[in-house]
């Protein structure tokens, strides 16, 4: 991570995207990822997964406009949330599922790991 990135660590980007708050939880057989997505409707959420990553792009119903703050001092408008997360373990993208309720997106990502029964001698 470069010096600039460490000092200018923003949760917004000049391309009109905000970084959402999210939580990753290891639930034994699956990884549960939730995202807080205010001002977003279910039909405007796009989820892309690979074995090692999950990406969420969510368009807001109304753009957010903030002005006169920080070093920007100009109008900035945000229309969407966007975030890619690297997962702690490989998952099976084909078996992933998601739900959306009260502005919170919940993605269940089953792990690839296969179980082996070990008999006790």
């Amino acid at each position: 991570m470069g010096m600039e990135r460490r000092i200018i660590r923003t949760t917004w980007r000049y391309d009109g995207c905000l970084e959402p708050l999210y939580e990753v939880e290891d639930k034994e057989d699956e990884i549960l990822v939730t995202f807080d997505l205010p001002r977003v409707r279910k039909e405007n959420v796009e989820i892309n997964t690979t074995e090692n990553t999950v990406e969420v792009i969510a368009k807001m119903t109304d753009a957010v406009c903030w002005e006169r703050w920080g070093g920007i001092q100009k109008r900035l408008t945000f229309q969407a949330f966007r975030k890619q997360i690297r997962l702690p373990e490989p998952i099976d993208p084909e078996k992933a599922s998601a739900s959306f309720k009260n502005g919170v997106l919940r993605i269940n990502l089953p792990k690839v790991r296969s179980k082996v029964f070990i008999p006790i001698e």
Partner: protein
Amino acid sequence: MEEVVRIAEEEGVVHKNPIVIEGLPDVGLVGTIAASYIVEKANYKEIGYIESDLFPPVMVVHEGKLKNPVRIYGNEGVVIVLSEVAIPPGAVYPLTRALADWFKEIGAELVIPITGLPVGNRIDISKPGVFAVGNSEEAVKELEGKQMELLEEGFIAGPYAIMLRECGKRKMNAISLLAQCFPVYPDPGAAASVIESLEKFLKLGIDVNELLERGEEIKLKARDLMRQTALSAPEMQKGVEQDMPIMYR
């Protein structure tokens, strides 16, 4: 010796046994959101600020005016403490002791730290419930008299937990109100529940409908403070609140 935490009051502020509301950043930012909304709706004046070398070297600018991020609002009968920055875990004890000393000095009638109680199924709860903890028999009796649901077993962690203790040591009644909340997402719904419960202790007459209507906007603005606060949660031992005490009955 220089004080570790300094509480600076505006000149001419009069206190008449105020009820104190403490809304410091914690899980779901419940206290911060609720305290800010109360200040806005009741139109409380800024009556002081708190500074400490243990706080991050940060000031905040609002409408071109330089302000301390940890501030005190209120009037003769109400004092509200809130912060726009996360309180570093190392500052919790000195801050809480300094505040409790000050609350004693101004003759506070009751201290009410308001915060959240993180629950895993918050997404399925439409109206968060509120639990209460009192720091004395008298405080618990008051809670029972007001039909508040008591938190009967479990650990509590964070600034509010220490505030209950420090007030107890100074023979002041304190009651913490905890609304079920998202652990790491700002939770205006939980803040609304806490404000409704506060009505049982002081009649502010604050309508929470606007808070609920503006919930999404508040969530957007509170993202950065939530992130800062969540970073200090492990050091604040917030995880212990989900643990079972060994002496559980």
